[in-house]
């Protein structure tokens, strides 16, 4: 069964550094998402991406964040200048459609630790 994959599984970085988290969504999916989960807290929506542009973003997704689909398979989340509070698990997800009830398929996550 097709799966969403994410790399790396863990990343440690210094505050102020740039990080790029990578995702390969399911191949025939059209909608892509990033979520994050700070330890012990809820999974929070960051951004959705469709047709090569952001379709929706949360208030968390500020100018430090950007997303890109550089080719036909990868979907990346870039954090330009990491802060301590960016430490979290980041999940990528994809779906075929965006109608009500459409299931989103999630990757295993990247655990980011900012020191």
């Amino acid at each position, binding site marked *: 069964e097709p*799966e*969403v994959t994410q790399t790396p*599984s863990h990343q440690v970085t210094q505050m102020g550094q740039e990080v790029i988290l990578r995702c390969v969504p399911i191949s025939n999916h059209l*909608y892509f*998402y990033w*979520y994050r*989960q700070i330890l*012990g*807290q*809820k*999974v*929070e*929506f960051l951004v*959705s991406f*469709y*047709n090569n542009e952001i*379709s*929706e973003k949360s208030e968390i997704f500020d100018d430090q964040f950007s997303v890109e689909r550089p080719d036909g398979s990868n979907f990346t989340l870039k954090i330009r200048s990491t802060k301590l509070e960016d430490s979290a698990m980041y*999940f990528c997800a994809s*779906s075929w*459609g*965006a*109608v*009500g*009830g*459409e*299931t*989103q*398929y*999630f*990757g*295993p*996550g990247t655990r980011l630790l900012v020191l």
Partner: protein
Amino acid sequence: AQTVTQSQPEMSVQEAETVTLSCTYDTSESDYYLFWYKQPPSRQMILVIRQEAYKQQNATENRFSVNFQKAAKSFSLKISDSQLGDAAMYFCAYSIQVEYNFNKFYFGSGTKLNVKP
């Protein structure tokens, strides 16, 4: 406010027994969908079961079933005949369609289920 609450951070069940994970949510929407996802350690979050809010009948999927109480905004997951492979983090979520091209998910903080042999 759209919120999902999972009040049990961690639970344990003996193999072959039944366990119920609780979830409550708050929404003013009338059309929404409810989900339970399972995340084994270091693995993908996978869909366990899905419920349309307009359906009164509770969804079932093999050993997994839900108790959907719409008026109470409650959506609990029952796992029957628990197996060691059921050990995972379980996330409750609901989704609403915000725009034609955006279906927003709201998640709870998760319940870690331990299964004892």
